[in-house]
């Protein structure tokens, strides 16, 4: 149990929690497998971005996370 998933904004509502741990290592296919139903659909949407340890991925399908990494799922921002 070593990669932390963080769900932001309405994705936390879909997930039912703000954070969850999954096994390392984690790639894009592994992430989708770990996210059932609407959460997986949301992750696939272009406007949902992925960051690893606070760094945004230009292409989220290149995700490679290991032991101790934090993977954030970021829906579109809605400003201040």
């Amino acid at each position: 149990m070593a990669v932390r998933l963080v769900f932001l904004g309405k994705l936390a509502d879909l997930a039912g929690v703000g954070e969850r741990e999954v096994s390392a290592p984690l790639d894009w296919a592994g992430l989708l497998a770990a996210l059932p139903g609407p959460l997986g659909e949301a992750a696939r949407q272009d406007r949902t971005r992925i960051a690893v340890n606070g760094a945004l991925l230009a292409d989220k399908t290149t995700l490679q996370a290991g032991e101790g990494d934090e993977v954030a799922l970021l829906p579109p921002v809605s400003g201040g």
Partner: protein
Amino acid sequence: MSRDVRLLTTPFDPATEIAAFGAAHRGFGGLCSFIGAVRLDGDVEALELLHYEAMTLPGMEALADEALARFGVAGLLIIHRAGIMHPGDPIVLVAAAGRHRREAIEAVDFAMDHLKSDSWFWKRELRGVHWTWIEPRAQDHSDLSRWG
């Protein structure tokens, strides 16, 4: 050149912050500021702004650096609330001090456009007992495109 960027989870008083920022930049000719507050808007009782520890404040700091470099202002202040707020409560304060008014006004305008549509905040509103997530506004994206 001074940069002061804060992400707060408790209330702040914009006029007090403007006074302090002005005192720290006495002798520069111009100080522009923008205060964004929760609108009194029909039946919205509260709004909540969520942020992401690993990205929101670092993103605001990078934005401040970009505005300082781009407009050549002497000082830039960005204060942004997170958490639950009620109508009338301040959400955001941006202030810029410089020798000339154009650069100060443009730095504030630029920073506000980017804070509204290009920073890591998620907003939801409380009406009655229901929280509703707010989607991005098309206007915010067209504002952003002004800066090329």
